[in-house]
């Protein structure tokens, strides 16, 4: 409350004293002292411990399931199998806020007969202790008859292939048609075609899925859990056959999400067991449960065929996309759509033809993961840009500059981008920040690469997305924010506090944010799709602004001036031209209360609403807006061993306006390392659909030993749709990293590995093949 920053007026005529500052987040102290309670830290008297029995093969028929021995074990309270459940299904679609009809993508809750993926749940156990639950798990007898499965998308499309999803294993298809690609290819001097492959990867949040459920005195099933989406209470209620107001989901600070806690995880099992036993039930996944139990990032095969003139103008683009959606639909159609829309990259291309398919297999189902299809698209389009540059002997950065979209250009789906497109500026600054090249010695080669991108923030506009927030001022001048937003570690709750503090003239210390409770905090929608700050931030901004207006008006009458002469800052309402004439917010709120001034406001923010795009041409608006930026890296590659070391890693992103620049840097730095794992080391290995690498000793995420020198460059065009002109950074910070690394490796060794992850083995093989072809 001591900040005396000079007034900086924005379009909203708001003095920025709190926003744009690297303030200590409201959640930081609790976490840094170990006092924050995560969902797994809650217990209740009489609590039972749950466990899930899963199929250990990917494709089969459940012939027999006998839980009688487990049920007879002392201390076992309930065993639920499909026999014990009504014949209901669980939704796997995107949770909406607006009551629109969801897609028909439901799945069985427990296996009734057919097993479609490794880890599909067969039975639920609740017992007095974790040890008894484990023992009961081992006492359940079952017999599974293996059935032929399908584990490759190409095999799943063949006639006579096992049908995982009726009728033909195709669970999603999108087409985009713009201009005339035949004409565009005819105008081209070169046509370059390449296929890129990405792998299954794991979110690897540090906190495994966990929750605690109980039925309260009103018959409401309460679930306290680690989730990105408290709005799943509706799907849980539907699956349970109870009204929506009889299920409540309470969050806690989430120990990482990255899309992996976007779909339903433990909540439905908890609800079923709590309802069956009428006792509190806790379910905590082991790390292996977590590896086996939630959806993965889709592997994609993406083929780019690009027509380009000799001076580097792209005249036509055809893209063919195939995604492995695994055994259930989940969010695959949307992930596929994101990939198709993102496929042309941040480039203006007049003639585009994109065909995409998501295909069911008996692999683990795939769903949301930071970047959501658009990250896979970037792996392909930015590698293709470097391949084009190499093929036609043109500078790869100039090739990009020649083709970047500019503000006012249309995307491949015909959506006009009205915000700033600072791709060039971001790329130039990122490259400059790499500094002097590192010297290469002996077999070690040094290379550099960039990737630029276009990544949406906010949900698909025909979802008609909304968010609510409530802001109030207490009679002592302190501020409370209530909003359903889940905080998955990026400071989602704290950002709302910073916005309210800015508008109400208090310090962040004077604000408490209550979030993530589907019954008590106004629903704000999901923490997904880089939408939390954009949507919830705007709702908090709107509520704060309305409240500010009332406070200013009341203060003006108290101070005997016009409302436009009053500002709020440093815990005071004061006359702008005569700051001595002031009253504290405490006095103002107390005076207001005694006069019946409304000291709170509930506001809803609505994203742009559109109708779905045309199915045949894919034409129409798809997203509210996009973030643009660049990641640049320098790598060293040992050509004898294939070992890659990332030396420097720079993210430069136009994020519109940083609400908390330190938190933005945190996203860029975290994205840099997550992208590095995606590029170099991470891959889930499935053998006939069975995950054979379900631990951190086999699945290698980057450690402190892998950290390069990371720089974050924040550009602020203030042109976004978020609060104070903010865009989003959660997903954009990750998206360009893996392709930048792939391009740097190709630059270093003179040949390309087209499949992620780029392991030492693949590098050595690529070098050998390049030698043989030379």
């Amino acid at each position, binding site marked *: 409350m001591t900040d005396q920053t000079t007034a900086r007026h924005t379009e909203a005529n708001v003095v920025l004293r709190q926003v744009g500052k690297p303030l200590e987040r409201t959640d930081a102290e609790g976490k840094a002292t*170990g006092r924050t309670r995560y969902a797994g830290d809650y217990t209740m008297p009489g609590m039972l411990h749950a466990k899930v029995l899963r199929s250990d093969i990917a494709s089969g028929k459940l012939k027999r399931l006998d839980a009688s021995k487990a049920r007879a074990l002392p201390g076992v309270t309930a065993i639920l199998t499909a026999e014990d459940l009504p014949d209901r299904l669980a939704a796997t679609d995107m949770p909406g806020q607006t009551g629109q009809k969801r897609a028909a993508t439901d799945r069985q809750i427990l296996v009734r007969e057919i097993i479609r993926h490794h880890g599909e749940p067969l039975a639920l156990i609740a017992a007095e202790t974790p040890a008894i639950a484990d023992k009961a798990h081992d006492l359940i007898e079952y017999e599974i008859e293996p059935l032929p499965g399908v584990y490759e998308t190409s095999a799943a499309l063949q006639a006579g292939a096992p049908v995982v999803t009726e009728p033909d294993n195709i669970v999603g298809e999108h087409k985009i048609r713009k201009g005339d690609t035949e004409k565009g290819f005819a105008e081209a001097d070169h046509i370059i075609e390449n296929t890129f492959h990405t792998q299954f990867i794991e979110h690897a949040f540090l906190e495994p899925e966990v929750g605690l459920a109980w039925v309260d005195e009103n018959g409401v099933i309460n679930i306290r859990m680690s989730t990105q989406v408290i709005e799943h209470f509706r799907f849980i209620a539907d699956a349970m056959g109870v009204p929506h107001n009889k299920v409540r989901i309470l969050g806690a600070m989430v120990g990482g999400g990255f899309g992996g806690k976007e779909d339903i995880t433990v909540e439905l099992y908890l609800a079923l067991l709590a309802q069956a036993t009428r006792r509190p039930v806790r379910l905590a996944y082991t790390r292996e449960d977590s590896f086996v139990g939630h959806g993965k990032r889709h592997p994609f095969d993406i083929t780019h065929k690009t027509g380009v003139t000799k001076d580097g103008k792209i005249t036509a683009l055809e893209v063919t996309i195939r995604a492995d959606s695994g055994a259930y639909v989940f969010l695959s159609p949307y992930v596929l759509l994101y990939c198709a829309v993102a496929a042309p990259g941040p480039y203006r291309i007049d003639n585009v033809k994109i065909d995409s398919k998501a295909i069911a297999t008996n692999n683990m189902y795939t769903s949301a993961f930071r970047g959501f299809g658009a990250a896979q698209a970037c792996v392909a389009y930015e590698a293709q840009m470097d391949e084009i540059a190499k093929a036609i002997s043109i500078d790869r950065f100039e090739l990009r500059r020649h083709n970047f979209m500019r503000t006012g250009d249309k995307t491949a789906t015909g959506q006009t981008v009205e915000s700033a497109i600072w791709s060039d500026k971001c790329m130039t600054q990122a490259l400059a920040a790499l500094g002097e090249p590192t010297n290469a010695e002996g077999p070690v080669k040094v290379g550099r690469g960039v990737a630029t991108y276009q990544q949406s923030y906010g949900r698909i506009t025909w979802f008609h997305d909304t968010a609510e927030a409530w802001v109030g001022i207490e009679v002592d001048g302190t501020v409370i924010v209530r909003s359903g937003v889940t905080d998955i570690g990026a400071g989602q709750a704290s950002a709302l506090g910073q916005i309210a503090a800015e508008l109400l003239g208090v310090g962040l210390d004077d604000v408490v944010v209550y979030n993530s409770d589907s019954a008590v905090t106004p629903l704000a929608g999901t923490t997904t799709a880089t939408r939390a700050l954009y949507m919830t931030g705007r709702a908090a901004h709107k509520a704060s602004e309305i409240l500010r207006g009332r406070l200013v008006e009341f203060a003006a009458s108290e101070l005997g001036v016009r409302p436009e002469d009053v500002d709020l800052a440093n815990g005071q309402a004061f006359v702008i031209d005569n700051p001595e004439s002031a009253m504290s917010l405490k006095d103002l709120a107390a005076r207001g209360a005694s006069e019946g001034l409304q000291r709170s406001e509930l506001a809803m923010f609505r994203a742009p609403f559109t109708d779905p795009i045309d199915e045949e041409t894919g034409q129409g608006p798809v997203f509210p807006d996009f973030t643009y930026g660049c990641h640049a890296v320098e790598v060293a590659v040992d050509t004898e061993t294939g070992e890659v070391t990332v030396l420097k890693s720079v993210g430069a992103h136009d994020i519109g306006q940083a609400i908390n620049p*330190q938190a933005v840097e945190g996203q860029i730095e975290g994205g840099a390392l997550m992208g590095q794992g995606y590029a170099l080391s991470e891959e889930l290995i499935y053998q006939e659909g069975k995950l054979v690498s379900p631990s951190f000793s086999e699945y290698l995420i980057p450690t402190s030993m892998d950290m390069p020198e990371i720089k974050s460059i924040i550009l602020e065009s203030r042109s976004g749709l978020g609060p104070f002109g903010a865009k989003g950074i959660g997903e954009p910070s990750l998206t360009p990293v893996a392709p930048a690394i792939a391009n740097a490796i190709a630059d270093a060794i003179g040949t390309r590995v087209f499949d992620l992850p780029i392991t030492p083995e693949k590098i050595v093989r690529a070098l050998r093949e390049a030698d043989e072809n030379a």
Partner: protein
Amino acid sequence: MSLEKAISVEINGIDRELTAPANETLLDCLRRHGHFEVKSGCEKGDCGACAVQIDGEPVDSCLTLAWTVEGRSVTTLEGLNDAENPHPLIAAFLEHGSVQCGYCTPGIMIAAEAMLREKPDPTNEDIAIALSGNLCRCTGYTKIFTAVKQAAGVLRQGGGDD
């Protein structure tokens, strides 16, 4: 039910008696006795979220049986947060935004504090090695390194509790 016994152990400077079955890990035992600042991340010694110090040495509490700490001293993050003299690591993590989801934070502070006693002026490599058993998926480690270096500086100038 496996055999249970009471073990005497000093936790964060306070003498305690904890009952534990023979097969219980220190992780489960500490959490059962209210030490929720010790996190469970993998239960296999791969991630470091459960790290505590035993007689000042960082260990994964998920790989340690509770009975083995009889007569020894255990330090958790709570032990670094002395009310009158909190460890400079805590202030440094707050100042530099080194905490995101926070789930790895307790283990990382435990590992970093042990390292700083050995290496009062750590290089990046010293920090990288000390934290190599502690996975973090949010931060890219960058701000953690910055905070650890700052805390080292504060300690060298005589700040903190020793």
